[in-house]
């Protein structure tokens, strides 16, 4: 009978197969067999430890200063301010997109420029940088700001020029179609914003959709008979 197994072998036999000689020894030696069993218990205890959880070593609040310093997180208050900032600065840039469509349709029904005037109205407006020329977010913000101002001025101009024939050619059905589309757009962008609240493009589309929706409701109110009221859409 061979001598007792080494401590290394006793520990190894938890997950290794004994050699023929080792197996023979184990079959006859209660002490070595007990040692292997003890090691098995140890390894079982260790595996159980994997699922054990303890109180965290620290707190999330202790992480916050570094998360903010590295701009991995945004302080909730700053986050709200940022959202408002996006809102106020951005609404216009892409309101151009949604609002522009509305204006286009309006002007199709009631041309606002004298016929024969070949100069497009945009040509007289300050030049707007193309997206490719943005060097940084400040650049982009300035362009958005300029766009917003232009849009407001254009809308004011249109309103001043034409107060009666704005909606010729646009009946209630087409308004409702537009509202339905805007509602879908607002819902889709709102859902997307939930996942990416800081995405400037999503913010723009969302705010634009809301703005255009409000404007459309107003316009519908203006063209609808006074005895009919829009409750909701």
């Amino acid at each position: 009978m061979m001598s007792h197994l080494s401590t290394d072998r006793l520990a190894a036999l938890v997950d290794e197969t004994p050699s023929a000689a080792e197996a023979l020894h184990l079959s006859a030696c209660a002490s070595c067999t007990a040692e292997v069993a003890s090691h098995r218990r140890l390894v079982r205890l260790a595996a159980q430890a994997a699922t054990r959880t303890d109180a965290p070593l620290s707190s999330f609040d202790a992480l916050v200063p570094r998360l903010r310093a590295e701009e991995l997180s945004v302080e909730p208050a700053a986050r709200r301010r940022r959202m408002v900032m996006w809102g106020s600065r951005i609404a216009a840039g892409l309101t151009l997109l949604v609002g522009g469509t509305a204006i286009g349709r309006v002007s199709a029904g009631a041309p606002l420029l004298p016929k024969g005037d070949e100069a497009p109205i945009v040509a007289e407006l300050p030049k707007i940088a193309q997206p490719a020329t943005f060097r940084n977010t400040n650049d982009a913000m300035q362009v958005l700001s300029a766009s917003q101002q232009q849009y407001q001025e254009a809308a004011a101009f249109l309103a001043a020029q034409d107060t009666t024939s704005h909606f010729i050619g646009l009946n209630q059905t087409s308004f409702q179609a537009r509202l339905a589309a805007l509602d879908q757009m607002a819902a889709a962008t709102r859902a997307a914003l939930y996942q990416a609240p800081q995405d400037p493009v999503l913010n723009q589309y969302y705010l634009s959709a809301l703005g255009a929706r409000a404007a459309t409701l107003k316009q519908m109110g203006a063209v609808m008979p006074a005895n009919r009221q829009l409750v909701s859409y």
Partner: protein
Amino acid sequence: MATDQITIRRAVNGDESAMRALWSAHAPRIDAVVRRLVGDPDQAADIAQEVWIQIFRALPSWRGDSQFSTWAHRIAVNRTLNALRSLRRVQFAEVEIEEGSATTNEDPDRSFVAESIDEAVRQLAPGARAVFVLHDVEGYTHEEIATELGITTGGSKSQLFKARAKLRRLLAHLVDVPTPAKDLDDVASLN
């Protein structure tokens, strides 16, 4: 625990409440592995913070093709081993574990009455502790450990068996299998 993907998306976007939710759900498990690998509680707390910063930094790279907990766990192990290397210049080389080589300022008798395997693991030398925790607690293979620690698979096995042998002694009160002689003692002590 299935982590809400939307929570992760929000956290990627810097939403602190979402980050807090992730931390609350996973810190008990993540911090536990850090604690086991590091041993020293104060050092473990510092390293756990580093681990979490690293998890949040890497969050945009989580593709959702693996469990978030598994993914974060890997980062925790990796980051902890790196921190141990730089903090203590720990070499996970194939060194012999000498008796008493572990740094401990605890009462030597405490190891024999320790009820927690974590306390006994803390008494192992850093290299042996890493191998034992990775293999027997975390379920890594010797190949994975070899890669993670920059040692050979033979070295990983050798360290593991030595760590087990030492823990088996430290935790005798928990793992001893009664021999016939001991059974008699047990019966006697019951009477």
